[in-house]
């Protein structure tokens, strides 16, 4: 079913909207959540909550594209759940991806409070604009979607090694960019 039809169902407050949303994007949503949570039960709960989130926000929202919108809800909920349960040993792809990214941010304990999430996100936006499309997508899929290296290798039809090397080069560039812009954490 077309996204526009699914949104129409949401606007008409028909519960079929959730079924169609689940049929069409359920597996993608589950993947995003599972990459972060590494736990099937948590993933299911998170995706169900995300559907509810979509139900509560459409209308008034009329998201286009629908998939990115729902993925964003899923990711937000999954991260919330992840932080709520830090005692659990996760070992999720999200953990690994965050570990990778941590080294890009120059450390400066004294200025931690000065770290501005929104401003830094804007600087990362600028950095992403300097990348070619392939490297940019690879970066976002790794660090926003928390895709595994295996998944990325399949998606880009290349080897795991190639993905790792490309990501590593991009992180190195990001680190330099952040230093140049005076970002520290």
């Amino acid at each position, binding site marked *: 079913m077309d996204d526009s039809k699914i949104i129409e169902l949401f606007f008409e407050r028909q519960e079929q909207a959730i079924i169609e949303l689940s049929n*069409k*994007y*359920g*597996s*993608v949503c589950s993947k995003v959540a599972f990459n972060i949570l590494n736990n099937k039960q948590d993933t299911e709960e998170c995706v169900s909550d995300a559907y509810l989130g979509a139900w509560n926000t459409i209308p008034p929202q009329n998201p286009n*594209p629908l*998939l*990115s919108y729902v*993925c*964003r809800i899923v*990711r*937000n909920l999954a*991260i919330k759940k992840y*932080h709520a349960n830090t005692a659990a040993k996760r070992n999720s792809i999200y953990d690994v991806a*965050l*570990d990778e*990214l*941590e080294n890009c*941010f120059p*450390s400066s304990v004294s200025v*931690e409070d000065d*770290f501005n*999430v*929104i401003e*830094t*996100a804007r600087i*990362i*936006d600028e950095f*992403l604009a300097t990348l*070619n*499309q*392939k490297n*940019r*997508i690879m970066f*976002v*899929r790794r*660090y*926003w*979607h928390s895709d595994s290296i295996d*998944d990325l*290798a*399949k*998606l*880009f*039809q*290349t*080897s795991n*090694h*190639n993905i790792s*090397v490309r990501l590593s080069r991009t992180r190195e560039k990001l680190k330099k960019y952040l230093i140049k812009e005076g970002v520290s*954490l």
Partner: protein
Amino acid sequence: MKKKKISETINNINFNYIDEATQYKGAIKNHFPKIWYKWAAVAACIALVLAIGFPFAKDLFISSDYKDIADTVMLIEYDNAYLEIIEEPKNNEKFGVKNEITEAVIGKHLVYLQKEFPEAERSNYIVANKETNIELLEYAPAPYKAVQIFRDGDKYYYAWFCNYLIKTNESLPIQKAFEVYGIDDASDIVSITPTKNDNTWITNDKAITDSAIISEFYNEIFVLTAFSFDDYHDFMFADELKELEQIGNNIDSEAYTRVADDRKDIIIETTDGLRFMMHYYPSYSWINVTTTMSYYQMSPEITKWFKNNIK
């Protein structure tokens, strides 16, 4: 604390970038048929960045884990070639055909088809030995191999020529590629346009439309010797890969990336409005045409042509 802030930061990156990545349907549809599958590991890098245009292994084809986020393509195996069924209408214009399939463009019946794996929701199609409700028809405005019409019941799609099915130690002359698009001589080409090398088909320089320049291109490219993938690969990489292997480096690393970064693309448009892409590697003097799955070593004349006419 640091990780949490990084996570929050990433969460706040521009929605357009998230959207771009979420909608991404995978690298260009490079599909490795079984006969080339042994090469997949070695050539994976090339397949990605050189965008050679090999067809997927059929086995991978129906069992993708990416169904929702990137539906796998459906291919038709017909007349010793692969055709790709174009389900995304916006791709049609890229190839030079109108989005809508009307009676006016539906040509004569070519062959009946059937699913290769009838139980699969998405499967390749092969020639059926009896009448079925699935068929391949000619594209009436330009009845060449380049584009045909695929009918499944009452649904019609364009089917675009991917490549001939040849082995990696075989090659085809460049004329075979031109034939596919109905090019018999230089006058059948209306333009040659440089494009970005990211498979977006976005032009990055003005189109060459001067008939004398096009004629020179055609005459020079027409006489180039064809090389198989195996020969090309040995020629380009064998020594270097051997060295890398000896010093313990992963063989799929630098050599492929270096060549891939050199790639430049041109789009050739025919008088019928059909378009196809050709890759060339100016620093290494090779041309690759996905239609024929073959490589052509550039002569001094064609090298000069590219130098003079494309920035």
